[in-house]
């Protein structure tokens, strides 16, 4: 087995039963960062900052979930950003131009996200072409279509409730968006661990051929996974609209690509599929948001942020890999 396959196997091993160990290390790293930031900049722990961090975190978490849903099947979804922005503009259009009630507009946007995701999944399952290529193409198709239709004009006159929701504070600290993100996480956790469909998705992601020959309706399952991915991307889009109070075509797109992978990868979801780490994805997103916000508060040039993110991602992945190797060498039985 090649080194790469081995490291993936090791990553996967920890999730044979939806195990937890890797996330513990992540939690410690995050706590360490918080300690450092809080010490160096007291404003870091201020209710205002906590609120902002929570709000940004909420979106990153859901974007991470969107990618995680695709990774579960052993593929990936390069169109998370495109679906996100399509949902944003559709929601805005429904709310503002068509003046539909906000909940209806939101449902419409989510529905579109799910539909676009479903389309991805359908083509992937039917054509047998890799998810990478299909979603690479669809990312361009969806973004392009959106640009053509909207002419890149932002929609700034959304109903007041939308922006207000984004500014709302629970207990002066927590954004309802964060609560939504956590709720979504809970649902996903239960879904992948306890539902039949969740198990089928992971089986198909681990070994599509074996799953098929065991009676799992692999095509259907992959299509649903990508629809879920699209739905989650749309959800993230709606959260951004609440945050901004407006529907802007500049949102999403390629900007979401990196964050969508950072959460799951840092959290231990293997790229090759077959396992998901819901809690890990949330922690991974938390790490990224922590660093971003910390650097902002410390007024370390925003420009160097990317460098730190990249280095941290590298370190996290390397540490993880060596941990797994160490476990193997010691013959520590896998859970």
């Amino acid at each position: 087995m090649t080194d790469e396959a081995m490291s993936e196997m090791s990553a996967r091993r920890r999730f044979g039963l939806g195990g937890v160990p890797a996330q513990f290390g992540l939690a410690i790293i995050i706590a360490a960062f918080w300690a450092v930031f809080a010490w160096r900049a007291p404003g870091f722990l201020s209710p205002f900052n906590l609120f902002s961090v929570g709000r940004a975190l909420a979106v990153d978490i859901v974007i991470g979930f969107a990618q995680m849903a695709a990774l579960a099947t052993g593929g990936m979804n390069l169109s998370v950003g495109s679906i996100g922005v399509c949902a944003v503009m559709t929601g805005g259009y429904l709310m503002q131009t068509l003046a539909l009630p906000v909940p209806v507009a939101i449902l419409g946007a989510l529905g579109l996200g799910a539909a676009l995701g479903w389309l991805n999944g359908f083509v992937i399952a039917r054509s047998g072409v890799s998810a990478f290529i299909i979603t690479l193409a669809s990312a361009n198709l969806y973004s392009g279509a959106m640009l053509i239709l909207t002419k890149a004009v932002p929609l700034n006159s959304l109903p007041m409730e939308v922006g207000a929701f984004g500014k709302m504070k629970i207990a002066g600290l927590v954004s309802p968006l964060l609560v939504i993100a956590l709720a979504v996480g809970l649902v996903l956790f239960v879904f992948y661990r306890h539902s039949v469909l969740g198990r089928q998705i992971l089986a198909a992601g681990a070994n599509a051929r074996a799953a098929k020959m065991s009676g799992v309706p692999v095509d259907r399952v992959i299509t649903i996974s990508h629809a879920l991915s699209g739905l989650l991307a749309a959800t993230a889009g709606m959260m951004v609209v609440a945050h901004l109070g407006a529907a802007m075509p500049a949102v999403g797109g390629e900007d979401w690509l990196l964050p969508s992978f950072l959460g799951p990868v840092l959290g231990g979801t293997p790229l090759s599929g077959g396992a998901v780490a819901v809690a890990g994805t949330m922690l991974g997103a938390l790490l990224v948001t922590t660093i971003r916000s910390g650097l902002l508060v410390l007024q370390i040039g925003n420009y160097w942020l990317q460098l730190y993110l990249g280095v941290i991602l590298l370190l996290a992945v390397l540490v993880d890999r060596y941990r797994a190797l160490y476990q193997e060498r010691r013959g520590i039985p896998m859970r």
Partner: protein
Amino acid sequence: MGLALEAVSKTFPGVKALDSVSLDLKAGEIHALMGENGAGKSTLIKIVTGLIRPDSGRVLLDGRAVQFGSPRDALSEGVSAVHQERNLIPRFSVGENILLERLPTRNGLVDYGAVAREARRYLELLDPGIDARAKVLSLSVAQMQIVEIAKALSSEAKILLLDEPTASITEHETAALFKLLRKLRDDGVAIVFVSHKLEEVFAIADRITVLRDGKNVARGAPMEDMTRQTLVSLMIGRPERVAEIAERQVDPSRVVLEARGLSTTRGHKNITFALRYGEILGLYGLVGAGRSELAHAILGDARISGGELLIRGEPARIRDVHDASTRFRMGYVSEDRKQEGLILMHSITRNVAVTIWRRLANVIGLINPRAESRAVAPFIKRLDVRTPSLGQLVGNLSGGNQQKVSIAKWLAVQSEILIIDEPTVGIDIKTKTYLHELIGEIACEGAAILLISSDMAEMITLADRILVMHGFRLVGEVANDHQYETTSRAIIGYIHAVGDVTPAPAG
């Protein structure tokens, strides 16, 4: 040139793969290496070919101690190997694959004309029909194996190691290979021949080394002194026990699956047979006969282009395995358990419960993991799967236990029609006997079994009737009297009546 391994040991986390093993390979001999799966054969092979280093002991080449740091080292010292798995570059040509380690160049660029010429020299020794310029992708499995053998030959190695070289090739090609091996031996090459096919080992080997549980139980014993019983008992540590299959009364009117003049997109024509409840219907054929493809077509994985398939008397259109299992209570134990039969990175529980998840789910569609384990446990117990826990990843189990898990999932969903494809390939003899008895039990319980196998002894032990397939056609049917001599002759007779005349196996 001779190769010797002296007191070589190798330990992996949790298991001692080799315990002070020795191998004494002389120039100009064909030396068989045998042992059950898990006996240490593959570890030994990896040491000889430079893939891994021994923890202790020495490797000697012509009396000179050597240390192989990588496959390249072994290659440069004249050790060449044909491994079990295919190791070819799919999009490269046959010639390029054969000469991959030493592509001939002219003016610094690869000289493809020379590549084809050189490669042809070795191909011709085995199968002149293979075009050196063809892409490996376009070859059949048998041809690919020939190419690999040609590749090993082309290195003009003094030490040649062949690991299950005849697994995918026809009798005709095997005969050609053996002729070639004898010639090489006479030219002074030292050949290690690893195979689980006892008849072949008896036909070709001069001496034999047998491993069991990581230790030598025979070291370079001359083949003349060896008998089949001795060999098998050496490998398993006790005399071989043939499975006892209980007698069943099969009611010929209770037909559960019937094929009438089936043809498929894979090339089958006019396949007609009937399978009854409680019956073990054998489907015998050599590699490439089209048996697995037929199974796949019945299950909906390949397309039926003509004829009729009736299940329980009604015409059936099976869309896929999901359909086959849920609507028709069919199951399929795949011949390729690692790729198709199991999900190696998931636990035993997940692998077995995959067929019953729907049933385990409560009103809102959720499954309690403990209920899942409880549902799976009885089957693991019944099949005697050796594992510390149900959460153990299937990839960590031994081949025999993996196969048991692969079967367990169909037992869990109480399949009434079970197609079992090559159930004991690469399985140790103990488990093999166990699985045979299990199949007998399942039939006793009323299930209908279509058994696909290219293992004659297994077929004759188990089947009630045996269909013979050759070239994607059914060429005969034999009522099984469980007597090896007569029944095997009848089966082979049917195969030869159709195809080329192939030399009878020696020994």
